[in-house]
């Protein structure tokens, strides 16, 4: 079987695979990064969202052969030695979850959103996250959390004169 090289959260993984396996399975079972979740297997719930080359991707639908050299970023790669990412801090301070199963996907999609739109309106957040399901119904808190994180990120950027790493 061919060998695939994946760059996940800055670490390089080599694995033998037919290439057909979805990225989600590789993340969860081979790399044991279980923060990325299975929800529906058809790209309709957003629980498996990771960033591939900075773009949000439903990892249940992407075969590892399609990933190539592009860097993959999962929820486990978000916090740094300096602490939690502003999105993580904001989800925490707003308690923007109940069971928390959708949270990693929501945070990863929000990270891509903030990279595109640093100052999103509530409606822009809803539109961009519409593909994500929170069965516990914490949507209003998630919108608030993303806006709080956006403010924190902007404050940080203006404070140190450059965009935040990552």
């Amino acid at each position, binding site marked *: 079987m061919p060998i695939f090289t994946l760059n996940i959260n800055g670490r390089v993984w080599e694995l033998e695979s037919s290439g*057909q*396996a*979805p990225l989600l*399975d590789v993340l*969860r*079972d081979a790399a*044991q*990064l*279980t*923060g*990325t*979740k*299975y*929800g*529906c*297997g*058809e790209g*309709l*719930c957003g*629980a498996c969202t990771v960033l591939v080359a900075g773009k949000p991707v439903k990892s249940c639908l992407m075969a590892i052969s399609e990933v190539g050299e592009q860097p993959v970023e*999962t*929820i*486990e790669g*978000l*916090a740094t030695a300096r602490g*939690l990412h502003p*999105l*993580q801090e904001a*989800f*925490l301070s707003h*308690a923007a*979850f*109940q*069971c*928390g*199963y*959708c*949270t*990693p996907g929501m*945070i990863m999609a929000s990270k891509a959103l903030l990279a595109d739109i640093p100052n999103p309106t509530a409606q822009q*957040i*809803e*539109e961009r*996250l*519409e593909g*994500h*399901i*929170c*069965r*516990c*119904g*914490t*949507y*209003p*808190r*998630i*919108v608030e959390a993303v806006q709080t994180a956006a403010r924190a990120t902007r404050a940080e950027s203006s404070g140190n004169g450059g965009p935040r790493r990552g």
Partner: protein
Amino acid sequence: MAESRIFRLESEPHPGEAKRVYRRRTEFAPGTIEPERFELFETTRYSFVLNRRAFWRVAGAGILLTVCFPLHAQNQNAQEQTGGEARLPEEISSRFLFEESGEITGFTGKVELGQGSRTLLSQAIAEELFVPVARVKLVMGDTARVPDDGGTWASLTSPQTVPVVRAAAAFARGLFLAAAARTWSVKPADVRLLDGVLQGGAGQRMTLFDAAKIARENPPTSGVERAPVRPDEWKVLGQSVPPVRGREIVTGAAMYASDLRLPGMLFGAMVRGPHYKAKIERVRGADRLPASVQVVHDGDFLGVVAPDASTARAAAQTLGVVWDASVLVQEERLAEHFKETSRAPVFVKGARYPALIEKGDAYNGYFAAPRKLAATYTTAYVAHVPLETSSAIASWEGDRLTVHYGCQAPFLTMELLAKTFGIPEENVRVIASDTGSGFGGKQGGAVAVEAARLAREAGKPVKLCWTREDEFQANYFRPAALVEVRSGADVKGQIQAFDFHNYNSGASGLPIPYNFPNYYLGYHPANTPLRQGSYRALAAVANTFAREMHMEEWAAGMKEDSIAFRLRHIEDARLKEAILKGAERFGWGKGGSKPGMAQGMACTIEKDARLAFFVEVKAGGKDVNLLRALMVFDPGAVLNPDNLRNQITGNVIQATGPALYERIVWDDTHLRTRHLGQYRVPRFSDAPEIEVELIDRRGIPAAGAGESPNTVVAPAIAAAIRRATGIWLRDLPLLPALAKAIEAKPQGPARANQ
């Protein structure tokens, strides 16, 4: 193993334990017991102080205290019918482990599904033992380690488990104070407990761990203060303590059932075929599978085991099966079917949800009344769609079975597994994992049974995570309901007789908040074509929808305001207050100025909480937008305001799904709803702006709150749609009913005020 440490909590039954306090006395296989196992065989030391009993043990590096209460004083409502057979724990107990590090571990049969039970119970322990919440840990839902305090259902954690834990922890505090006082030869009242340290007037200090050691060696039997902290003096309860596992959740470190892994574990997948109910005639294609795949075929059970998840799923799809499918009763015939197969309501004494509630003579009262109204209401089957599908890992050692399972009722699952595999309950250990929501859908144990069957064949641990399709095909649904209501009023429109019959969906929510002089409220069990079971608030949704819509139809018929009409039938002061507060804050009667916009409301008393819900909608053609909503919620004491607000808002949003569009569809032999793409659930844009007003009454015991908001959402929306469109909708979900009504012809209140 997910858990590297296993405490063995019980050894020999103590002669003092006349009743069975714990359900479990599991022997673990060699190798899984801790080195300190021998310490555990020492005799229990215990003390009796009035009706409370304390058992002390050394467990690992800590001292374990078990507090038991005779049942009758604590809990008369533990019987729960929706979770299976009626069960009543013989005795309520709580357990705490005190460690030298100052950490306190509580052991509870409750599990965490996102409703906040882990945080609430941690708060209760911290409150009574005067320690910060951060120093409290919880072991939840491990049948070998926790007392059986019932499953996590029916919103019982706040009204039932929290008081027990508080009382037990308060008793523990009393024992510690007494032990310290005795050691220092002072009065217990002269000992203070501050931040987990006991302090005497002359500068003496003692940790809770040291006090536990002293109390274990020589249990205090007198001078033990037992009263929990008075609610008006709460420092931790009543506060918005953030979720204790929040950091794990936002970093992806939180482990759910589907994330767990055991050494040597294999992966399972089930083969269910296209039909909803079918027998297996033949299986073909096993020879085409890779050698690493094992097929497990036992009667109508068919599954595969493989080294990884992708291989298992592919193998399950490779197998060719000839099925003998059963034809299902069709939806068009469902109401008729329910009535044909129904059994009369039976009154069962002591039932938590009596199936028959009667006062006066509703039957003759109806016929004698000068004004009459009769209507029929229905609700569809709906799915829970927990975002984490049902998942379990099973492993066997000989005839001993251990199952990690993201479940709501570990002890029921334990019984189910024992029965299914013909082994004693003592041989089964169920370890509940935190799980990605349940909403009633994880009370059963089907996935655990399937994982265990696969693992027995494989001879290795097997993890089975249901696919989304499995979740639709193999789990149960919220029951469909047929509710027939007829009522009679005097000439002033004061309802005199109320005759209410629920077919198939259940008895919860039958009691009425109105002061009708004659009523008959009955639940008629019936046969169901689809598997059905528990769901958040279960039948209370259908029963509240039917009752509140019926009130709405009366109010309209009397040309009276919805609130005014209700108020003249309500005596409960708390419910009245909730409605009036809500009307004021929501601007009742002041909305709906634009075409298609209208307000609606509904109210209820559910599981002792008072609820008044208001909603404003915009209806245009066959579509309905929810603009804003307000829930006034009075649960008595509020244990954690922010968690409660989160629960209420979330429940309202979730409830809009079954209210407006969620429904299971099927044809002759197939479920037609088998993927998320075929089953719409509420998303970001579906959520209205929601305000929550809490009425906090510290002096009144906290009612459960995790599911009662579900009940009032649909009737309020339906009432608003009626005001916006003039169309009466009596079937849930409302959007298909609205489309049907528009396609037919506009209608007025049915047979109102004849």
